[in-house]
């Protein structure tokens, strides 16, 4: 049995999902799990037809909630590693082996596929702010293209990670406080082909997201031990 599971969280990605799955299939022979987070379109049907395992949570769980569903599934089925990528086609499957190689070399517990050039000016400002507050030295804090080893899966499948909303700073802070080794792997990403980012869509949502994330950073100040570094 394969010990690595590809997890794709998706919401209304019928336009891109078959292409994404085909790309993953071309790059690897790993089993593929799609977590359909309340799509109104045919995302789940298309993914199933393409041979993916499809989970459909009965409630809307958000991007991270969907990913955690995949992590918990992986934990339950004894997968040793999980790679997550977005369903909108911006993450290129050809880089998956690079992410896994970092875990295989035992250089890290969590590998981030980083492509900081993708960020708009506003996003760069936001990342710089988060880097400053948290002391996390990563270029691409919000990348959803990541690989987790067994240790990272066990931690992030836990209750402590359930109330996070995004696969970004909160997850990294939790991983750091658990002393997981996090490494960035430079990759190339395509610019978003359909639709804008879920987060950076309206000023109200952006403001709320920024305030929540800043509060999260400060709330975890002591546990993350920035002072010690």
């Amino acid at each position, binding site marked *: 049995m394969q010990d690595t599971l590809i997890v794709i969280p998706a919401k209304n990605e019928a336009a891109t999902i078959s292409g994404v799955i085909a790309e993953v299939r071309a790059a690897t022979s790993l*089993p593929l799990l799609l*977590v359909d987070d309340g799509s109104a379109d045919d995302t*789940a049907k298309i993914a*199933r037809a393409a*041979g*993916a*395992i*499809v*989970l*459909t*949570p*009965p*409630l809307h*769980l958000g991007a991270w*909630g969907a990913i*955690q*569903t995949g992590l*918990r*599934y992986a934990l*339950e089925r004894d997968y040793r590693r999980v790679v997550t990528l977005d369903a909108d086609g911006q993450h290129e499957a050809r880089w998956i082996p690079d992410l896994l190689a970092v875990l295989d070399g035992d250089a890290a517990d969590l590998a981030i596929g980083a492509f900081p050039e993708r960020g708009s000016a506003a996003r760069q400002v936001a990342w710089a702010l988060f880097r400053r507050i948290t002391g996390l030295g990563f270029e691409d804090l919000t990348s959803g293209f990541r690989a987790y080893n067994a240790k990272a899966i066990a931690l992030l499948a836990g*209750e402590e990670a*359930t*109330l996070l909303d995004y696969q970004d700073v909160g997850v990294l802070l939790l991983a750091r406080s658990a002393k997981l080794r996090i490494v960035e792997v430079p990759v190339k990403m395509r610019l978003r082909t359909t639709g804008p980012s879920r987060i950076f869509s309206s000023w109200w949502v952006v403001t709320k997201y920024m305030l929540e994330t800043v509060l999260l950073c400060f709330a975890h100040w002591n546990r993350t031990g920035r002072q010690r570094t």
Partner: protein
Amino acid sequence: MIPGTPNTVALGIGAALGLTLAVAILVLIRRDHLYIRQALWWVAVAAVALAVGVFPAGMDYVGRALGILYPPMLAAVIAIVAMLIKILLQDVAITRQERQIRRLAQELAMRAESPSSKDIS
């Protein structure tokens, strides 16, 4: 009428309010509309309301003993602080439930894996 001594009507209203609250809470518990853990708090509230309703002079006495210039404010401050604490605890409870609900939804999704995917892999 002497200032500072409540008249019988006011006393009656206070007592009636406290009593109504106490009875309403007991009825809600009996009908299973209040989980016993929450009910305990409300029984305590009802008891205090009843006590203050029937003996308003008690609050004045405590207020003066604490050096509060306008003793009735003591009742208002205690009530507001109690409500703030209660609301905060409710949010803590909501957080716990939100976590449980999300994890339940995830587990449900994991159990109800689509049948057509079983024959793959």
